[in-house]
């Protein structure tokens, strides 16, 4: 049995990070020049880490799969970023942000990591404003804030509905500054295929040049993965088409633990699915829930007429509308956390109250806000989101309520890391959505951007030095070492195998089957039987992939289908991991809802006696073998663990 050491510093929670920084080992400027760091990914976490490490004096190699670092999917985050600034004088504090995040995560996050996140949140806003990020402001010139789900203060900073874009462009500009200074070398259209381990430490990667198709070797003293989440396992999600979990799965196959894979966030406000040719789901920002009211008809016959297209939402009179979130959760109303809002929508639709032709949609209505604030004010706040909605659906939210339905959005699980953001493989770090540590079983809105930038700007650049300080005498590695050759050969063999199957099914058609199984049995409501069935079906999908896949073209040069096939191989492994973990966790918490474990009124029922742990899954040498789980017991010192209550 492996021992899990989370390396949480001693002392009261509010002093842990200060103590760590005061006593950690640092690398002096002359030695930084001798140390190389690979950063994979250029989203908020990757770009901010690469820029900060480069500026400190390390030599950084930064990789991205797109044509430019600015395309990373952080760019699509809409609503905002949380910070405990208390600019609104509404009683916010570091403790309250910490508390809200732990509670929102249904008491499955690691306390010390979350406190640190809340502590550095204020610095993030300072840093971004200094970079020229144009946050929304009030007429007096001060920064503006809005409110988000799961909290009772206004602590979210935003830039229209494009906060992720502006923060990423801020981090990207810092990165470009360092590329110009020569401290960071950029590799665009490169995809990491494997991590190279030498004497138990991460010492480099094998990356595929996506244009030439060639595999290339890169050595460094440490490897940082900032490669995002695994939402695309479900095929349809709000993730970008290229988002994938291959880097994380490569690390997992090399022995890194994968933590809490079952914790997947299903976002309540997405545009509903319209057909089987659909390629992705579009998110409508959670900020809409500040002014939009969610409802379905009270009467089943009205729902039926809506489903048949005989009437529209605006035809239903006020007294026949069921504002079910306001009804069930009076204290938080439409601003309950995402997992609660998603399940409530599913509950209504399962009962037959869905409002579109598939019966899988609820209304998000702005008519009251338009009356209260005027159309101009609503347009000022949400104009670009309304335009986007109308472009996709051909319906104007000014005239008719929006239709929304939950969709896979974010993954709280990820590579296991200790307090220093290091995986159990020395020298291998994971930051941003790629790790598991801060959001527990459910992430609050506007916290992903906060975590990405906290890890990249303010945490990793410190903690990585604690590892690198004893590496200063280690000379740069040659990529001719046998470990590099072996890793490259394994990837090459894999590619040859996929090219030579020459079956009948395209990558996407198999991926859609995977997505269907995942959504049906490993989605919003899970059962023991369903999960066991899913594990069987996933075996069939793996078999079909291995024997009936067709990849056109050759492995030389650009081959988009081959790259997708390599990713799908890892999505199947990821799907199995999610199902194993969901089956193992005999409770409902946050984004993980097991139908067997619910209260009488349908709320998630946690089991703090038996499930108060982080599950850490270890690969057993083959995708055919079931992984083994170790537990990192959670220890709460500052917060009393209790049932989440958003009712009063």
């Amino acid at each position, binding site marked *: 049995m492996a021992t899990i050491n989370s390396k949480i510093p001693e002392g009261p929670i509010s002093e842990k990070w200060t103590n760590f920084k005061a006593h950690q080992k640092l690398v002096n400027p002359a030695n930084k020049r001798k140390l190389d760091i690979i950063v994979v990914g250029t989203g908020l976490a990757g770009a901010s880490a690469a820029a900060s490490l480069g500026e400190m004096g390390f030599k950084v190699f930064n990789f991205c799969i797109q044509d430019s670092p600015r395309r990373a999917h952080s760019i699509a985050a809409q609503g905002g970023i949380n910070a405990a600034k208390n600019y609104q004088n509404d009683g916010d504090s570091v403790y309250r942000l910490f508390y809200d995040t732990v509670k929102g995560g249904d008491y499955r996050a690691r306390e010390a990591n979350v406190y640190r996140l809340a502590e550095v949140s204020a610095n993030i806003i300072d840093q971004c*404003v200094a970079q020229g990020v144009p946050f929304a*402001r009030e007429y*007096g010139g001060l920064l503006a804030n809005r409110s988000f789900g799961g909290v009772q203060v206004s602590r979210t900073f935003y830039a229209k509905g494009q906060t992720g874009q502006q923060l990423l462009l801020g981090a990207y500009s810092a990165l470009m500054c360092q590329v110009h200074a020569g401290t960071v070398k950029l590799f665009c259209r490169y995809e990491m295929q494997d991590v190279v381990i030498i004497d138990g430490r991460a010492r480099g990667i094998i990356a595929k040049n996506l244009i030439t198709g060639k595999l290339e070797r890169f050595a460094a003293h440490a490897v940082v993965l900032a490669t995002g989440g695994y939402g695309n396992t479900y095929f349809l999600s709000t993730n970008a088409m290229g988002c994938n979990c291959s880097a994380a799965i490569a690390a997992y196959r090399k022995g890194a633990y994968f933590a809490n894979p079952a914790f997947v966030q299903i976002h309540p406000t997405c545009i509903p699915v319209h057909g089987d*040719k659909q390629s992705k789901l579009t998110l409508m920002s959670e900020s809409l829930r500040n002014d939009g009211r969610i409802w379905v008809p009270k009467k089943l016959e009205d729902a039926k007429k809506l489903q048949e297209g005989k009437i529209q939402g605006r035809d239903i009179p006020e007294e026949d509308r069921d504002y079910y979130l306001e009804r069930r959760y009076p204290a938080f109303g439409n601003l309950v956390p995402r997992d609660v809002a998603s399940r409530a929508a599913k509950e209504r639709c399962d009962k037959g109250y869905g409002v579109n032709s598939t019966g899988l949609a609820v209304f998000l209505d702005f008519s009251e806000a338009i009356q209260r604030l005027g159309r101009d004010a609503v347009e000022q706040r949400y104009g670009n989101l309304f335009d*986007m909605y109308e472009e996709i659906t051909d319906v104007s939210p000014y005239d008719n309520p929006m239709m929304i339905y939950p969709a896979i959005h974010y993954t709280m699980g990820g590579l296991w890391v200790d307090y220093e953001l290091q995986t159990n493989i020395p020298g291998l770090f994971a930051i941003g959505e790629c790790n598991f540590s801060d959001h527990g079983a459910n992430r609050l809105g506007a916290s992903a951007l906060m975590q990405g930038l906290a890890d990249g700007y303010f945490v990793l650049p410190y903690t990585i030095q604690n590892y690198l300080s004893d590496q200063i005498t280690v000379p740069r590695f040659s990529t001719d070492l046998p470990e590099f050759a072996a890793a490259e050969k394994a990837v090459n063999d894999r590619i040859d195998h996929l090219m030579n199957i020459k079956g009948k099914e395209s990558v996407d058609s198999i991926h859609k089957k995977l997505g269907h199984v995942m959504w049906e049995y490993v989605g919003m409501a899970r059962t023991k039987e369903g999960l066991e069935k899913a594990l069987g079906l996933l075996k069939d999908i793996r078999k079909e992939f291995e024997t009936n896949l067709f990849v056109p*073209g050759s492995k030389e040069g650009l081959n988009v289908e081959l790259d997708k096939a390599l990713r799908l191989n890892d999505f199947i492994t990821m799907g199995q991991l999610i199902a194993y973990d969901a089956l193992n966790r005999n409770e409902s918490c946050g984004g993980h809802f097991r139908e067997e474990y619910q209260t009488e009124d349908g709320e998630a029922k946690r089991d703090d006696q038996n499930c108060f742990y982080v599950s850490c899954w270890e690969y057993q040498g083959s995708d055919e073998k079931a992984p083994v789980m170790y537990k990192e017991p959670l220890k709460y010192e500052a917060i009393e663990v209790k049932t989440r209550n958003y009712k009063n």
Partner: protein
Amino acid sequence: MAKNISFTIKYWKQNGPKDAGHFEQREMKDIPDDTSFLEMLDILNEELIEEGKEPFVFDHDCREGICGMCSLYINGTPHGKTETGATTCQLYMRRFNDGDVITVEPWRSAAFPVIKDCMVDRSAFDKIQQAGGYITVRTGAPQDANAILIPKQNADEAMDCATCIGCGACVAACKNGSAMLFVSSKVSQFALLPQGRPEAAKRAKAMVAKMDELGFGNCTNTRACEAVCPKNESIANIARLNREFIKAKLND
């Protein structure tokens, strides 16, 4: 309610920057008009793969109009025609009619060489950004975010400039292959903010010099860029860039 349409698609095939390239053509049958343009191309590719052929290659990623990856020249217009300005991925088939011939080409510009089919190399934009598209600030502890007040109007205007997604439609539309709208949007964002002023002169000169060096043309005010920009960037930015540039040169 969605209806189905059938049409002919002519799409550009080119095997690398040196290849002459050619159009290929295909009849698309019964495509629901609530399909997005890129989903329609997914259907095309699934058909091609089923026949054992290589798919048509194009850049795309977020599919919600923000990453700037998609870059198709559709019926003679970058990103295709919409009323409000939208990226290729936000274009829906309801904009087309039964029986249409739809022509799909890559961005065509000397500074954006074709990699394959409609995928082009836009790394020149990164290089321009590296030349000066940033505020030099160390990670760490800058002053409090509210220490410098910024009038709402300036912040909003800076935000409008910062909305540019770096897709390159402006370059593709310009008969001179100029990147002025892209460069001026970045220069304007920083020029409008107090934090950006200290390096404003250096930034304007460096970015313009890099743009010239990389083979982009100059601006002759035809406003083609503004007309196709999916984020509605204004050529007022170009005027501001010119002011910043002249001011900087006069101070040399």
